[in-house]
């Protein structure tokens, strides 16, 4: 059997986000994220003067970039990327220097004081490897996130990215972010 290439990505429909924080707490539980740290977040943009107002929410986490600057700057190789695109930290090799935190254009990493290592979203690789979807994707009440394999032409993210307009954040960094925000 030929080994199929995989490339995981996330498509995000921010308009459906109601800022309920289910994704944030689900991630916290799933990944034992310490209180005060977060692997994902919901950015808020509030604008206007009463009564002409707007609020926009934008869920964000590690963009699992194609050419991740965090991996490039890591002095020990602790930050690394799987063949399927998931960017991880090898905790045994992390020396807690935090260069990667500075290098990340998305502020997606945090320093875990308890463990003395840098940590971040793993796309719940432990769930994905069992055929499940990431906790943040699964728990979402309005199903804002769609997770899938870009190499799989039958995946829903394929359909979304080929039929809808989208943007990525900070494309000028050359990191090749893999969080696709639908417009």
């Amino acid at each position: 059997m030929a080994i199929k290439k995989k490339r995981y990505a996330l498509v995000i429909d921010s308009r459906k986000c109601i800022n309920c924080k289910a994704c944030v707490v689900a991630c916290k539980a799933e990944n034992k994220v310490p209180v005060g740290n977060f692997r994902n977040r919901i950015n808020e943009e509030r604008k206007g003067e009463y009564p002409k107002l707007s609020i926009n929410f934008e869920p964000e986490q590690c963009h699992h970039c194609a050419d991740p600057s965090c991996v490039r700057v890591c002095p020990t190789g602790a930050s690394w990327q799987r063949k399927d695109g998931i960017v991880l930290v090898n905790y045994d090799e992390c020396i807690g220097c935090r260069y990667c935190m500075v290098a990340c254009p998305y502020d997606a990493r945090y320093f875990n004081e308890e463990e003395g290592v840098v940590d971040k979203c793993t796309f719940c690789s432990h769930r994905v490897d069992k055929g499940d979807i990431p906790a943040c994707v699964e728990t979402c009440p309005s199903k804002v996130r769609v997770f899938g394999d870009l190499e799989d032409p039958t995946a829903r993210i394929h359909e979304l990215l080929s039929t809808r307009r989208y943007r990525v954040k900070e494309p000028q960094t050359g990191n090749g972010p893999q969080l696709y925000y639908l417009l």
Partner: protein
Amino acid sequence: MGTIRMDRRLFLKSAGATAGAVAATQVGCLRYFKKGRSSAAETKEIPTTCELCPNKCSAIAVVEGGFVKKLNPNPENPKSRDMLCARGNAAIKQVYDPDRIKQPMIRVGARGEGKWKPVSWDEAFDFAAKKLSEVKDKYGPQGTLWSSTEGFQEVFFKNLGLAFGSPNLVRHPTLCLASVNLAYSATFGTVPSFDLLNSKFVIMSGANRFESIITPDTMDLIGGVMERKAKLVYLDPRFTVTAAKADEWYPIKPGSDLAFILAMIHVIIKEGRHSKDFVATYTTGFDQLAEHVKQYTPEWAEKETEIPAADIVRIAREFADAGARALYYAGRRSSWYQNDFQMRRAQAILNAIVGNWDQMGGMVPNAKLPKGEFLFMPWDEPKAPRVDEIETAFPLAAKGDGVYLKLRENVLSGKPYPVKGWMVYKQDPMNSLPDQAKTMKMIDQMDFIGVIDVQMSDMAWYADVVFPESAYLERTDPVEVMPGIWPAVVFRQQVVKPIHDTKPNLEIVQGIAKRLGLSDYFDYTIDQWVEAEFKDLPIPMAAEHMKKHGVWAASGQPSYGKTLNSDHRFVTKTGKIELFSERLQEAGHDPLPVYTAQPQPRNDQFRLILGRVGYFTHANQSNNVWLHEFVKENDLWINPKPAERLGIRDGAYVNVSSSVGSVKLKARVTEEIRPDCVFMLHGFGKKSKMQSLVYNVGASDAVILETAWDKVSGNAAFHETFVKVANA
């Protein structure tokens, strides 16, 4: 973070001086870290039913080494729409909360002083039974009050109160949705669900469905608005998340929603846009309604609501054109104004005349599923009349639920008779009732207070004895039928053993009952109770199914139109949908909704309005560490215009005072609220030191809310309080 791009060597060179030092300090941590990750305990997945709010979503608990590691949504329950919100996810922290009550406790200091003696269950039961008996000897069984909030084990608590002989059970509805329930019942003979999954045009007064999460409504509406091109018109003095997602938002003048609805009915009837066939076949009183609403023109309503007449006319037309797929959404916590019942009645009438009853995308009478009943020994009906005088004061209200605020008034006055014992289950009257000082007076005049709760609520803090209940993840509960468009039967089974010396409510009730000589009424186990309920589920191997799946949802497909045949009798006096209600008239109320303008705040006053955020709703969730991370302290929303006038700066402390109390909290100067209103979140400023994250942090709205209620339902009117705001 900018756009940094450099290769590793360059980066090391620029920051290398400190790298070695940092590395050296971290090495020691690595071993600990590896140890934490290498545990290979057995993992189990156990389906259960969430209890953090009343939605009762189906969840699957992932248990590792006897600990709940994660709660995942259970896709088998169509009502919970394959999701678990922040609160549901944070239920783990309810179990592992260091503030939990870890054993029964009896008060040794003054009430509220926080001096407790840990006691055995026997001591706690003996104490409660002795005190309850003393009250009974002096004042009769009606001298005890049994108050509780909905939950699967509430039935046992209510049964104890009844078996004890007290008619005075009081539940949460008149602090929540009693007015909406009564208004829809008065019109349709039942309270329907709203098919937001298929609706094309939705109008919502307040309700804030994108922050006040109700399943499946929240999920269906966000999908409707964002994917299926449904239109949402939203009225709220505050720019909520729902307002932000709506197609049109109107910061309506508070208390005037009824004027808006009556003007819509006026336009629809005047222009003949109502569903004539439906009105003729299924309703009664249309001619009286048509005559009645002639006075309520859009131009008149503009003055009341501050919504332009042209918009009211346009919205009325669009609404009527959407017909069966148009919905004026009822909302849930309908405790706002003293005219609340009539405002909800007007919504019901508007819905009726466009013919959305029992239609896809309209209002749908709830479908139910069968389950068995455990037959227990019945007791004699309590003989005394209720202390809240519900039969005479609110003849249409649900007697089994009681009317909370009237009840408090009567207990305080001692009329019609004294009430001196108070048992509380899963409820925090200190925070859920307005005017906390009054609740304190009620506490003061009690000879005995016993509280059963998972956590040390403010009410528990003022009790004489506290019985710690096991958290939902530690219990098996009765089976519950969830009626709705997508009905389901849900089961909550024990996921982990209790980690402290706690008991499920049934065992607490049995402990007290035994010492009161009432054991015969509670002579069963939870397993026997549940087995009896499983028996009549029309599925093979029902018990096995429910234990394995946690839910049964029949086909999961909605059925519409079952009541749409001309022979169908609605459960109303006339058997029709009652636009005009003789029953209301007989009870001394307006048979058609009559508008009276609500008082408005004067120059230096603001109306205090309440609402929710998605990540916590009830006072019992604010001390959950995973939810507390999002709001550490509540603040007072105030518009920049009045803030400037009063010299109030964003983030500075202000005093907020009403006629009944005063609180201090931080100002949030924000455009997202009407200039004549202020807003604060519920659940802060706790008095209980065992709510350590929110003890004395922020303020409780209950301190400044004044007592007022809806005339027909007795529902608390929470938006009737005017406050003054000044720099602290």
